[in-house]
């Protein structure tokens, strides 16, 4: 069982699946010869040819629209949008087409494609390259949204997404593409879409997060351990549908919930999770749910990004506040 980083584990999942599943085609900007700007599709064009790993023109909306047509024909397109900041231009296809195609066609067609995109900030990237747009997708019916935070989950979620009959938006936390390594099984396996993971067990407070920020939450939990606060960290893994069972089990145990995300606060996924907890577990709560988020501002250029994205200190402070409510 080799040690892989997140980029390598996704690459391995794609490689293995393409060997046995000829429905899969990969398309996107620079995914072929260059292997993707983050090298996620590295070597795939060499292995499977330019007919299956397609370097497209520079046209995000086109990439996604073409993928919808391919999926209607019965293929399994895995398209890449190079950066999170370029996703807004594909929303016409996302909202008006791929999430609706099954019901609109009365079940005849479904857009069972996978849309991959890097996610999040803190990599000193240029403007529009540090965005967290998951709420736009999770808000849209008919789409599943996943985001792994470990190499093992990345491979398993990708293989599950390939088997999923629905469109799956697959976010990849770019901050930890290469910084986290773990043993990843060689064989094919799935991590179920819709199932969260307890990243750390604890009894005093629940911190819910996803993507790269899970690791920041674990850091905060470590810090709080020294103060005698035992934090449970839930890695959501799937953002739509949310694993409400896992959240309620944890919150019922701890009575304190903090949600941490990189995205802005208003109308975000954290807002939805907070509403779910208040609706279903109000009497288990010993304090109101707290949200630790990016501010309701534009993501600043990278000199200030450390002040924009939640860090371990801000997450720990929110946990302390709920504990002393």
């Amino acid at each position, binding site marked *: 069982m080799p040690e892989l980083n997140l980029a390598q584990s996704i690459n391995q999942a794609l490689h293995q699946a393409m060997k046995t599943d000829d429905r899969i085609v990969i398309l996107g*900007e*620079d995914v072929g010869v260059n292997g993707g700007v983050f090298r996620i599709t590295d070597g795939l064009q060499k292995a499977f040819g330019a007919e299956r790993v397609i*370097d497209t023109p*520079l046209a995000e909306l086109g990439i996604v629209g073409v993928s919808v047509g391919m999926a209607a024909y019965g293929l399994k397109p895995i398209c890449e949008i190079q950066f999170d900041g370029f996703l807004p231009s594909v929303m016409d296809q996302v909202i008006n087409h791929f999430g609706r195609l099954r019901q609109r066609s009365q079940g005849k067609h479904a857009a069972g494609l996978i849309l991959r995109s890097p996610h999040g900030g803190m*990599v000193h990237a240029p403007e529009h390259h540090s965005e967290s747009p998951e709420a736009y997708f999770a808000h849209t019916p008919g789409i599943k949204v996943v985001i792994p935070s470990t190499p093992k989950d990345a491979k398993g979620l990708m293989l599950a997404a390939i088997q999923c009959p629905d469109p799956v938006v697959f976010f990849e936390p770019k901050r930890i593409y290469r910084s986290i390594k773990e043993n990843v099984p060689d064989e094919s396996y799935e991590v179920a879409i819709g199932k969260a993971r307890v990243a750390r067990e604890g009894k005093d407070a629940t911190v819910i997060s996803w993507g790269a920020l899970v690791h920041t939450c674990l850091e905060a939990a470590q810090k709080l351990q020294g103060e005698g606060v035992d934090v449970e960290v839930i890695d959501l893994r799937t953002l739509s549908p949310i694993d409400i069972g896992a959240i309620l089990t944890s919150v019922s145990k701890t009575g304190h919930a903090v949600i941490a995300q990189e995205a802005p606060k208003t109308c975000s996924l954290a807002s939805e999770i907070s509403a779910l907890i208040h609706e279903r577990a109000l009497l288990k709560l010993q304090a109101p749910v707290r949200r630790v988020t990016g*501010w309701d501002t534009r993501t600043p250029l990278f000199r*200030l990004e450390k*002040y924009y994205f939640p860090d371990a200190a801000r997450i720990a402070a929110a946990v302390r506040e709920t504990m002393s409510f």
Partner: protein
Amino acid sequence: MPLTKIADFKIERLEILGADGRCDEALVPVISKEKMLEIYRMLVLIRVFDEKAFKLQRQGRLGTYPQILGQEATQIVPPMCLEKKDWLIPTYRGQGSYFARGMPLVNSLLYWGGDDRGAKLPDGQNDMIFAIPVGSHLTHAVGVAMAAQYRKDSAVALTYLGDGASSKGDFYEAMNFAGVYKAPVIFFVENNQWAISVSRKTQTSAQTIAQKAIGCGLSGIQVDGNDVFAVYRAVQEAIARARRGDGASVIEAETYRLGDHTTADDSSRYRSKEEIDLWKDRDPIARFRVFLTAQNVLTEDADLEVRRAAEEKVRSAIDEYESVPEPNPLSMFELIYGEPTWNILEQRAEFERYWASGSSRRETLASAGEGRFP
């Protein structure tokens, strides 16, 4: 019923100054000696800037930076054809274009150094800040041009795009609006042959990008983009056409991105050294220098002085960049709305409390490493 030809189109290519510095006298635009020297000084300045900015990035003193190297003529000549009242709507690989319009050099360093203050245009300048999402600014240029029409101003809008952006729907929509409303706009296509790893040939099966103009009823021409005179002449004609109310133009300027896409790219993965060498021989500055020298507009001493002055300007911009204090984090909460809303005010206060409680956490830009872009 016979099959009849109902329309006929042709696409012309303009070349005036050859790679050997010799030129077609009949086509040379009328440019004063002083203006020629002004152009030359800008060409040299942007090259020196680009060289130094690249080095700063490699030393960890600047963030990801998109090199201009090889595209100096397409960058600085079109904006130098504009008047002050006109508008420039540039792209992210546009340092030369906005420097030529008066943006201080330090701004670009600040911006690519991750400081939002770099995006501030000088007061009194009409231009828009460049867009990062490719092609998304092209319709803005048409809107600017339509607004000028509405106000009965004679201002025109000049916007840039690359060969990659010519594939975006935005380009078609922008051209079509411009055609329908005869908007005074110039789409200047800087065809540098590569959209990251995708070559011009892979980008579109159209023979030229210029011909895309025809589908929307616009004028289209291809020019040698490394030829100062061809670019100057084509842009001047397009501006005159726009000001006359005769509509928009597409100018496809063929040039070459000698550097990587950005400092985060490695173009040796997808293109050959031979191809790069071929384009190095078509250098836009070298051939203009040969011409100016042959015409006795530029002496060897004057040339050395141009280079020295450019280096001095760039050095002083770098000094300024590196002495600017870190941006104030509270600036994140400014300018989101005309008047801040309650949530912005509340979050700003929350941040202030948090910031006051901890260390200031100021740090200088560290060298590129794990977790960095990309």
